[in-house]
């Protein structure tokens, strides 16, 4: 009988990455204000250009990039450690998050020399932020169906169409935008390209989309005869699909799929006190075991990526399991915390934290590949399709 190939070899971070962890922890302890649990949760995923600037001053943005663009030429694993610490400590890293994680690496890989010279050093300094223009009103999981067009004109491209769910477009400098540059919608992945679009260009309207939390993070971005110069094309015309699919697989299993609301576990431990009853011990132990195991899976994928492999199925497995852990956590914590709190005076604030975490949770298994898309990828990996 042939065994399906899902392999997660154990992986340990190198000592210099763990040394960096100590440094990052110390820095965050110093720089982050001493917030209550509720306030800290509000600050999670929030944007602070000041914090991003401080991260840039430390040299912790674009840390893997070449020195000539301001990077430190450290390994992907150093970045992994920084990401973990930012998440676990609830740092407001939202401003530079996309630029550091996705846009910068894309520009580094596909961008012109001019683009790299002008943009990357600003990202590294924590002064240049990015949004991602992929989804459209009629294109969610089915990205190849995008309608937004870029038509060739003298010296560049004229862009028309609408992007949606564009996180942080109102507070970013650029958006890497997936567009149809040739052919028709029926041509699917052929004829798609990505342009790096300056969001202050004439012809762009950014409208807020308020989410169920009452927060403004998403936007609708409408392009009407927006001119984008040739030099802002990422790679060659028609390479967009390859770039996008590569990007989605990249780091699908990163720490953000596991640790986004890990402070809920921390607050649960706080509220049950140092000597909780047996059921609380068991529940907390099970949660800890799940997140520990997930972290080992994520580390394993990081090790494979660092070794130049492309563990697409393993990273989808990790994301699927990780997002469901993050969705279970607030529910389990809410029920246990309410019945096992050591001091009843703390319950209300704790339940507020759980409530906020619950309201954020539906997004986890939608963004970065829905559960259903991921399970399709995994099923293909198992040889079922």
């Amino acid at each position, binding site marked *: *009988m*042939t*065994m*399906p190939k*899902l392999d*997660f*070899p*154990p992986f340990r971070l190198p000592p210099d990455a763990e040394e960096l*962890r100590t440094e990052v922890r110390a820095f965050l302890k110093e720089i982050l204000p001493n917030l209550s649990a509720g306030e800290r949760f509000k600050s999670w995923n929030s944007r602070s250009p000041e914090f991003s600037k401080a991260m840039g001053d430390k040299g912790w943005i674009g840390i893997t990039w070449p020195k000539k663009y301001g990077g430190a030429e450290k390994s992907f694993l150093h970045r992994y450690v920084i990401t*973990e610490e930012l998440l*676990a*400590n609830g740092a407001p890293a939202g401003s530079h998050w996309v630029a550091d994680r996705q846009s910068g690496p894309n520009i580094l890989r596909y961008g012109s020399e001019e683009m790299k010279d002008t943009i990357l050093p600003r990202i590294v300094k924590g002064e240049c932020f990015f949004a991602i223009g992929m989804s459209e009103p009629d294109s969610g999981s089915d990205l190849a169906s995008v309608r937004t067009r870029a038509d060739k004109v003298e010296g560049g491209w004229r862009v028309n169409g609408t992007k949606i769910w564009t996180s942080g477009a109102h507070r970013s400098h650029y958006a890497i935008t997936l567009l149809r540059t040739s052919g028709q919608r029926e041509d699917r992945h052929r004829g798609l390209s990505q342009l790096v679009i300056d969001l202050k260009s004439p012809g762009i309207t950014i409208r807020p989309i308020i989410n169920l939390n009452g927060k403004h993070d998403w936007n609708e971005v409408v392009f009407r005869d927006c001119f984008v110069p040739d030099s802002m094309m990422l790679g060659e015309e028609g390479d967009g699909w390859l770039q996008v699919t590569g990007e989605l697989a990249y780091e699908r299993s990163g720490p953000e799929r596991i640790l986004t609301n*890990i402070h809920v*576990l*921390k*607050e649960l*431990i*706080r509220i*049950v*006190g*140092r*000597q*909780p009853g*047996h059921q*609380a*011990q*068991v*529940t*907390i*132990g*099970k949660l*800890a*075991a*799940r*997140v*520990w*195991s*997930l*972290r*080992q*899976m994520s580390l*394993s994928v990081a090790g494979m990526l660092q070794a130049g492999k492309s563990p697409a199925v*393993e990273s989808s*497995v*990790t994301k*699927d*399991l990780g997002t469901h852990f993050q969705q279970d956590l607030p529910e389990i914590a809410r029920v246990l915390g309410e019945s096992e709190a050591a001091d009843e005076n703390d319950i209300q604030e704790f339940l507020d934290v759980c409530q906020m975490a619950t309201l954020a949770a539906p997004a986890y298994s939608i963004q970065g590949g829905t559960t*259903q898309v*991921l*399970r*399709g990828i*995994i*099923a293909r990996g*198992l*040889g*079922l*399709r």
Partner: protein
Amino acid sequence: MASDNETRDMFVETASRLFSEQATREIINAFEKGTWPADLWKQVEETGLPWAAVPENVGGAGGNVGDLMAVLREAGRNAVPLPLAETGLGAMIAGEAGLTPPSGPLALAISESGAPLRIEGGKVSGKAKRVAFASVCDNIVVVASGQVAIVPKSAVKIDVKQGQTGEPYDDVSFDAAAASASAPSKVSPERALELAALARTNQMTGAADRILAITTQYSKERVQFGRSISTFQAIQHMLAELSTYVAAVAAAARVAARDAEEGGDSFSIWAAKTQASDAANKICAIAHQSMGAMGFTYEHILHHYTRRLWVWRRDYGSESYWGAKLGRAMCEAGPDAMWPSLTASKVAT
């Protein structure tokens, strides 16, 4: 003591070939009806696999605990109805105390704080419950506080009880039972229980892997409504979900084995057995649902693996036992220690 890759590969290849060829369904079924697979044991013994982690100076293969765990993953993958975990660990613990382990299968009796076993002047006293394979082994390795002893079966009273895998889980009474050998040991009963939990976790990951293989294979072969059921998205998504739980157990088991091999903290074992036991029911439930009535028959092999997962999750500490231990330690250390503990695989203080 680190094992090189070549030694590890050799153990795994030998185990994989032998178990997949010789631990047949007939043998597994027959053992459930009471026929000890003497030939299979003899073949396994000839390869030296049970003594993978026993020092060479007392007749072992000179590998380490990581090698033994790799062998046990293969044993779990093939539902091998032999006390390989118990023999492997019993011989390792006895061997590390300078005792030469006897040939033949060994059972493992570990002293528990609620019902302790005592080794005094070469005699063992106390009662041990649910001792896997005791009635089919010639000798029992007893791990008590500060001491390890090898006790012949003839010196004890055994209340034979068949477990739900079809394998014996017997109650053993030691009434000043004369040990054939005993020695001071550095392996405490607590540590022995951790190692046994690690062993079951690694057997569980092998069995879980096989469950995934059986169900994916079956879905491709089974035709309904004119097409193989693997083409239905509902089945694809069930099996994809199943694979995520199987993968979590595998990742946890292998990291815990590596940490034990490198002399790491017990944290990884607590977490891995909790994870494996916690995931067992989800794995079995999806597997059975995906196979319909066919997988619920005795004739099909699926149940040999699902029943083992359901029994093994309880062996040597369930998710309640190890989860409470892990949770208690993390609560004692306080909220600020949570993240440092998770990253260090050791409860931070």
